[in-house]
């Protein structure tokens, strides 16, 4: 294995010896779609006057094998604003590199 890597560097880069960046990306997923819904929780058994707006998000995600799953979660407005801010910061960093 070691001699193989030394002998056929070009080939092994692609196949046998996976660089760590690639290995890491095996656990990451690709986002195919983001669906959102905004709602208002109006009233509940414990609080008649709930009046709480929320953002519900469903992420359509493909893993490395191509399997597609949906992941849903809800955020309060401050949580959404934090979520949005993180993406804006990411975009700003990506522009500079």
């Amino acid at each position, binding site marked *: 294995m070691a001699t193989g890597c030394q002998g056929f560097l070009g080939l092994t880069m692609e196949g046998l010896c996976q660089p760590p960046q690639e290995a890491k*990306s095996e656990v990451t997923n690709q986002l195919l779609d983001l669906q959102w819904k905004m709602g208002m929780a109006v009233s509940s058994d414990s*609080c008649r006057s709930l009046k709480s707006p929320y953002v519900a998000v469903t992420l359509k995600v493909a893993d490395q094998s191509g399997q597609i799953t949906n992941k849903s979660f809800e955020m309060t407005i401050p949580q959404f604003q934090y979520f949005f801010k993180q993406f804006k910061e990411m975009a700003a960093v990506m522009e500079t590199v």
Partner: protein
Amino acid sequence: MAGELESSKSLSGLLSGLAQSTFHGHPGITEELLRSQLYPEVPPEEFRPFLEKMRGLLKSIASADMDFNQLEAFLTAQTKKQGGITADQAAVISKFWKNHKTKIKESLINQSRWENSLKAMNWRVDLKSQSKHLDLINAPVAIVELELGKSGQESECLCLEFDEVKLNQILKKLTEVENSISTLTNPA
């Protein structure tokens, strides 16, 4: 004994305990614990109705999410009612609600959310220095980790990768959400 039920300090502690057990999900705060710690001189049979009265008041105030005018009107009515509360007790409840309203409301909102929530979010931007696909070399990628879960349950981690194009698509969608929030919160 009657004097002890009048104590502002004990009542303030009692309301905190009730809020913990009723709204914040701490089942360990029992009737007996509250009595022995705050009203040791009051016999259980006298303490129970007092506790239930205070719990009932707190639940009504929280359920209606009363603002301060509503609270004043509600408490004044309670002081005039047969078997109601004293003016001093009303003052303690009013002060307690002012300090705890936000936290209690937050707990009630969380209790009524059954979907996963976003518990944490981490991200990192990488520059691919080596890749199977030559065109990806030196292209930045954002790696985002989302921790999703229901309250009190184990959460799952979702790891996503975005290139610049994908990230801009997401930003566009999230901008739509933000616009929708503005419309809802500041109706024209």
